């Protein structure tokens, strides 16, 4: 088996592999920068919380129009927004930390969702149906992810300055500008859009994983924020591509395969990373001496 057979042939032979790769590229471009900001704001676990928070919206969509992906996704988006914005407002206006208020709201939301589903008396696992698979990209789903990535990058560029300053020095930003709170809320909205579309297209594991793990990897290779973002996007792309190839060659399910590759990169970064990697800490380079 030549290198060509391993690395390129699957994508040339099968359309679903090309579509999966396209989805991965769009997801990496939009998700990885968001992941970096989430990490800087210590909100890395928000993705998993959000996967549960969207349940009531999806359930109401299901009650109104049955197993209709569009209705369930729209409902999920609305529920996600509500939870993110309420949590953001509470942590802005009171002393409660963002993670604590988010945890409260997502649990309440999940409880509400389970109740709604049970009232209907249906035992179908809604999230199971709503969450998609990377190998099943239809035209509509691909367009949604691509549009989503475009919007995300444009909006990120627009709120980049206040967002960066707020992530590193919120007090300074508050003293010179009032853009902090709006930027934060817009950013939360971006997180929700990316996650919900990601769930719908790719499933929880991939949507959250390709957002958070690359940020963790980048953290060991760069100190400045543009470096972090570039490395995060790059490692998301590499994990996505390598994971697809791994899944094709070994029979591992695709989503887990991609995340396992990313986790491998993360472990390697923890060991050998430039910035704070363990090996570098044990064997420090000599300081410049006069």
């Amino acid at each position, binding site marked *: 088996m030549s290198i060509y057979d391993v690395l390129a042939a699957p994508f040339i032979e099968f359309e679903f592999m090309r579509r999966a790769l396209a989805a991965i590229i769009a997801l990496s471009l939009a998700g990885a920068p968001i992941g970096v900001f989430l990490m800087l704001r210590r909100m890395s676990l928000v993705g998993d919380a959000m996967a549960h928070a969207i349940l009531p919206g999806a359930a109401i969509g299901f009650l109104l129009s049955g197993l209709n992906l569009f209705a369930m996704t729209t409902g999920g988006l609305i529920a996600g927004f509500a939870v993110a914005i309420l949590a953001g407002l509470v942590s802005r206006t009171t002393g409660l930390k963002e993670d604590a208020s988010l945890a409260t709201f997502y649990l309440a939301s999940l409880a509400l969702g389970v109740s709604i589903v049970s009232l209907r008396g249906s035992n179908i696992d809604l999230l199971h149906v709503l969450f998609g698979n990377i*190998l099943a990209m239809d035209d509509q789903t691909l367009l949604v992810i691509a549009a989503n990535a475009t919007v995300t990058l444009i909006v990120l560029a627009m709120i980049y300055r206040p967002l960066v300053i707020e992530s590193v020095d919120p007090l300074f930003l508050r003293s010179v500008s009032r853009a902090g709170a709006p930027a934060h809320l817009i950013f939360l909205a971006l997180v929700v859009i990316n996650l919900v579309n990601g769930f719908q297209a790719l499933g929880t594991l991939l949507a959250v994983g390709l957002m958070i793990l690359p940020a963790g990897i980048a953290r060991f290779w760069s100190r400045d924020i543009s470096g972090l973002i570039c490395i995060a996007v790059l490692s998301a792309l590499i994990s996505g591509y390598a994971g697809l190839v791994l899944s094709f060659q070994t029979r591992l399910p*695709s989503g887990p395969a991609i995340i396992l590759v990313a986790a491998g990169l993360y472990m390697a970064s923890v060991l050998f990373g430039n910035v704070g990697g363990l090996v570098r800490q044990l064997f420090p380079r000599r300081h410049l001496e006069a």
Partner: protein
Amino acid sequence: MRSLRAALAALTMMLGATPQHAEARINVVASFSILADFVKNVGGDRVNVTSLVGPNGDVHVYAPSPQDAKTIADARLVVINGLGLEGWLPRLLQSSGSKATVVTASTGVSPLKLGSEADPHAWQSVVNAKIYVTNIRDALVQADALDGDYFRRNADRYLAELDALDREVRNEMEKIPPARREVISTHDAFGYFAKDYGIAFIAPLGVSTETEPSARDIATLIVQVKKDEIPAVFLENITDDRLMRRISEETGAQVGGTLYSDSLTDEKGPVPTYIAMVRHNIKALASALGR
């Protein structure tokens, strides 16, 4: 006053003396809708049937509620499929403190293997459905001997209907040209149907709707569909169909419709009973494959 008391006493005695079948209905709990349909057909109006996993529910990924524990605690019989389908049931039985007799409807079916485990979807073959009905009849007779004849009569009538259904399936399947007796469906629910009626089913998901396919699995499937010129891809009522549509688009196999495997629909849906379900499935298969 005395006369009123006497009248009440007389009334009580009369009530006690008349046979009260409505009161003596036995509560039966079935784990999912297809079993409930069998119980209904045999038990008629002498049993109350509740299905834990309701219409259009997925028995593979089911989580019981306190309501279910209460239902089970009140039941005389709990009818389950067995063959590893209801993994959640033993704990539910224990926690509900139920004294119900558990009836395994698939007892006596010769199980097919799927990997290392038994394939639970035995009801998809009408031959096995008859074994299910016989088991349910015996259990009902044992639980309520007074109504034994009634249950036996119902069961005989229903078994005759199933016999006719079995012949109908065989007739329909024979009309399909042998080269076209191959389809793709979402999960491996049709092993028993395939074995008894000679239609090959190939599925990207494993036996449970919970597993996730690898890129290699999908690629193998696509190659196979192209090579064997498999004419149709089928959807199921309880899973996301995007994957099947992708395979259909990539291979040119047509989407043949929806097959019902693990769950009936409610009264208004297309398949409220087991017999309607089998008829629906063979009609979908015959119209996509035969020509």
